[in-house]
């Protein structure tokens, strides 16, 4: 018996003991009908081959380990960026349980959202009653200032009409007639979570700017000098939004963050649960129509939203999740141009510090080969930073990246000598990435938590940047935007490089000569 009250051992050690390993070996050989060892090894090796890669890339119908989620997840993300706003997802209830769990596992924070809990009868008769009862219940229990309605695929397949349903619910007295209940149709079988973010944010702006679904006059734009800022669906939203606010405040820019999730996913442990915290106020959301311009940090999260904002006469600028010196330069110069405010010396100094840090460490990154996967904007931002560091982003993959993204990424690579021989994979998944890593190995992999399976299979060290990150804590509290954010990403990459050096040089009397104390 290996268990011991003095030093209790759990799954990490318990099952490595003799009694368990023998038990499990017996289980396998007597009852599991296992594949013969030679056959298993043969197939395992074959999955690493060029021949397998060819078959893998020939698949047309099957998706294995995608790096994307569905629209309603993005809808919940967008809704939570507004003051006292309750995301209300019309459709099956299990979906909402999944979104809440998914976000809580990443942010280590509560995520509040409700479902209209549609079941078989709603599938037949439509979900109007679920909407009527659901809005009434949510309003009484959770006292939201706004309820942002989106849909699951179930409601979309049966064709529920949100606009009509919400009107009907208001007529039934579910919520006060003047209550803000914006909506967006967010079918899970179109696009991905970034599409859902886009549709929902657009839905909210449309609600406030275009007459609240026919119940108020449309707002007339009276341009002021303010800037709107949109972060997009971003796993680092807590750190990033706070960093952007700090930079804009330093510059003295007048701005509105449209969709500010930085407080709701970072509430204090002080004895009180804040279901709502922070967020863009509804007044500011309406007022944002008057801004001179809107900056989106993520083009592919705000495609339709920017079209809509642009149609009101604002200048709209979109970045691709800028990371590093040049990305931040471009962002700040646009802010400066649009706001007429100069970039202050304090910020220029921060830039200098990042450049200095890159100069200090560049020798360790220069020429290293990387594979990156993730959302379209994030992969572009990270690839740009790697090129700036003299690294080679050999494989850039985005499951929810399309033709436009591919073109952009290829142009980015073409613009740098370090992009030579690098390739872009749109619409591919992490099982494709596995073949790439076996057949064209790289030094490091950048991706979310699911990359750990690739790390285990291919021995490519994983640098965790992306969404979701379930198995490392609190990184979302640190920005990856701004020069400070660039510093965080640089350090994250360097830490992995140095850890890797130490791990590959610690074999005593074999490789210990490179086990340097100063690097």
């Amino acid at each position: 018996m290996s268990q011991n009250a003095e030093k209790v051992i759990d799954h990490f050690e318990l099952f490595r003991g003799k009694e368990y390993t023998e038990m499990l070996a017996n289980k396998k050989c007597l009852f599991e009908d296992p594949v013969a060892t030679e056959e298993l090894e043969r197939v395992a090796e074959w999955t690493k081959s060029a021949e397998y890669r060819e078959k893998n890339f020939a698949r047309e119908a099957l998706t294995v380990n995608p790096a994307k989620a569905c629209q309603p997840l993005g809808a919940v993300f967008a809704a939570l960026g507004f003051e006292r706003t309750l995301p209300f997802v019309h459709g099956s209830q299990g979906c909402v349980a999944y979104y809440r769990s998914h976000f809580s596992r990443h942010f280590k924070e509560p995520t509040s959202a409700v479902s209209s809990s549609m079941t078989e009868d709603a599938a037949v008769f439509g979900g109007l009653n679920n909407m009527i009862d659901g809005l009434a219940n949510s309003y009484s229990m959770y006292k939201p200032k706004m309820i942002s309605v989106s849909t699951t695929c179930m409601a979309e397949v049966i064709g529920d009409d949100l606009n009509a349903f919400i009107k009907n619910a208001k007529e039934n007295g579910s919520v006060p007639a003047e209550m803000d209940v914006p909506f967006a149709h967010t079918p899970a079988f179109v696009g991905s979570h970034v599409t859902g973010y886009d549709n929902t944010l657009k839905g909210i702006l449309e609600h406030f700017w275009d007459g609240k679904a026919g119940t108020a006059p449309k707002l007339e734009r009276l341009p002021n000098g303010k800037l709107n800022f949109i972060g997009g669906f971003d796993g680092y939203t807590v750190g990033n939004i706070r960093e952007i606010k700090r930079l804009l405040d330093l510059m003295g820019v007048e701005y509105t963050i449209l969709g500010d999730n930085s407080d709701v996913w970072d509430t204090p442990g002080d004895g009180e649960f804040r279901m709502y915290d922070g967020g863009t106020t509804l007044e500011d959301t309406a007022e944002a129509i008057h801004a001179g311009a809107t900056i989106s940090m993520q083009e592919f999260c705000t495609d339709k939203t920017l079209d809509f904002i642009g149609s009101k006469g604002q200048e709209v600028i979109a970045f691709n999740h800028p990371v590093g010196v040049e990305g931040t330069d471009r962002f700040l110069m646009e802010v400066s141009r649009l706001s007429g405010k100069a970039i202050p010396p304090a910020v220029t100094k921060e830039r200098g510090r990042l450049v200095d840090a890159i100069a200090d460490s560049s020798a360790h990154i220069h020429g290293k080969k990387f594979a990156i996967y993730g959302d379209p904007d994030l992969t572009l931002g990270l690839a740009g930073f790697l090129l700036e560091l003299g690294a080679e982003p050999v494989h850039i993959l985005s499951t929810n990246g399309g033709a436009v993204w591919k073109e952009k990424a290829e142009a980015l690579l073409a613009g740098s000598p370090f992009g030579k021989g690098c390739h872009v994979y749109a619409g591919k998944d992490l099982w494709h990435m596995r073949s790439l890593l076996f057949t064209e190995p790289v030094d490091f992999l950048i991706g979310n938590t699911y990359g750990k399976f690739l790390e285990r299979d291919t021995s490519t060290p994983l640098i965790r940047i992306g969404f979701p990150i379930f198995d490392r804590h609190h990184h979302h509290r640190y920005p990856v935007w701004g020069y400070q954010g660039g510093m965080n990403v640089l350090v994250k990459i360097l830490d992995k490089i140095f850890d890797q050096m130490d791990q590959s040089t610690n074999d005593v009397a074999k490789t210990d000569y490179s086990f340097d104390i100063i690097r």
Partner: protein
Amino acid sequence: MSTNVSVEEVKERNNQVIGEVLEVYPEKTAKKRAKHLGTFENGKTDCGVKSNLKSIPGVMTIRGCAYAGSKGVVWGPIKDMVHISHGPVGCGQYSWAARRNYYIGTTGVDSFVTLQFTSDFQEKDIVFGGDKKLAQIIDEIETLFPLNKGITIQSECPVGLIGDDIEGVAKAKAKEHNKTIVPVRCEGFRGVSQSLGHHIANDALRDWVIDKQTGKPARFESTPYDVAIIGDYNIGGDAWSSRILLEEMGLRVIAQWSGDGTLAELEATPKAKLNILHCYRSMNYISRHMEEKFGVPWVEYNFFGPTKIIESLREIAAHFDDTIKEGAERVIAKYQALTDAVIAKYRPRLEGKKVMLFVGGLRPRHVIGAYEDLGMEVVGTGYEFGHNDDYQRTTHYIKDGTLIYDDVTAFEFERFVEKVQPDLVGSGIKEKYIFQKMGFPFRQMHSWDYSGPYHGYDGFAIFARDMDMAINAPVWSLTKAPW
């Protein structure tokens, strides 16, 4: 709640807080929710609450769906089969490797539990139907994952709404590839919770795996001591720390359902002499079927905490001859010293602490004995997706005056905890951070908060350690700023 409060006062407090939450609801909702909230009265044969009814829209139910019950719970852990999340990408993505069904295998080659296979439905699949795509997916799986032993099709909402014939595809492809291919109609809108998903998954097991074994010989020579573990999902290794005790008492475990399970084990199960059932809720259906069709009796057991483990070992042994009965006593004696040491170490630190639970499956009742072994008291409990038979079984575990809440809403749970002021809350990931922010120690009782196993004697030591580290963590004294 101080310990000198009388049961009558507790009941009065429960009534009061139930009244307070109901007051907030619209009238119709209050009427419905009232039936799910109550206080256990000693001597009653159930907990006095309604269950297994539709969740009310907009209340923030903690429940999931039928897909979660089938793919996430019953089928997903079968390691040598490929489970396709059939429909849009989300369901498979959110459940990808999220349940800690431990297994041993070469992932992606002969084992597939922590892979996300999805048909990633696009608009055209909704409009024109997904059957052709499904057929092609099965072919592609056969090409790229040739060592799979079988495939299951886990339906997501749209599949049942657009009239696809997944059974037809499954039959045709099973014949073509000479493989077990199981269509499961576990669309998320079916039923009121995960529970119907369990039932549908059990029925699919019956129709597409178990009944096809009629008349087939076993792969191995049967012994009089062959048993199958049913309803243990091997969270953090639970089934393993259970299996070891059964083997030590002289039984032979021929199958695990479904944690670390294989298709071969499922197929062998009708040959068992006894099915031993841990999670009654999710697998009573197939146990009953095997009893009726193959004459395999079943017995429920509880491997949480020494008191229940000892009762269960004896109960299981009672189905066998003296060799096994003696074996059970030998196992009990072997672990007595460990149990005594664990209790001696942790009980003084946990004595008198009060716990509120809200979980799924069997745990709202099954873990109560383990807490009591440590001198703790469960003062409130409820089921995410329990039925009346679960609440009947619960009466054997709980004390007079226990607060009962079925399908609790986030709003109710928060108010109840605020009022009752337990020393520990045990529930899920969606609840964890809410209560921790309120200053309550918390353990996830679905995933064991990434610890475990909690089953068996080895697991009890871990359970005790974890409850102690939750309750006695220094962080709880820092919640309030000193100024």
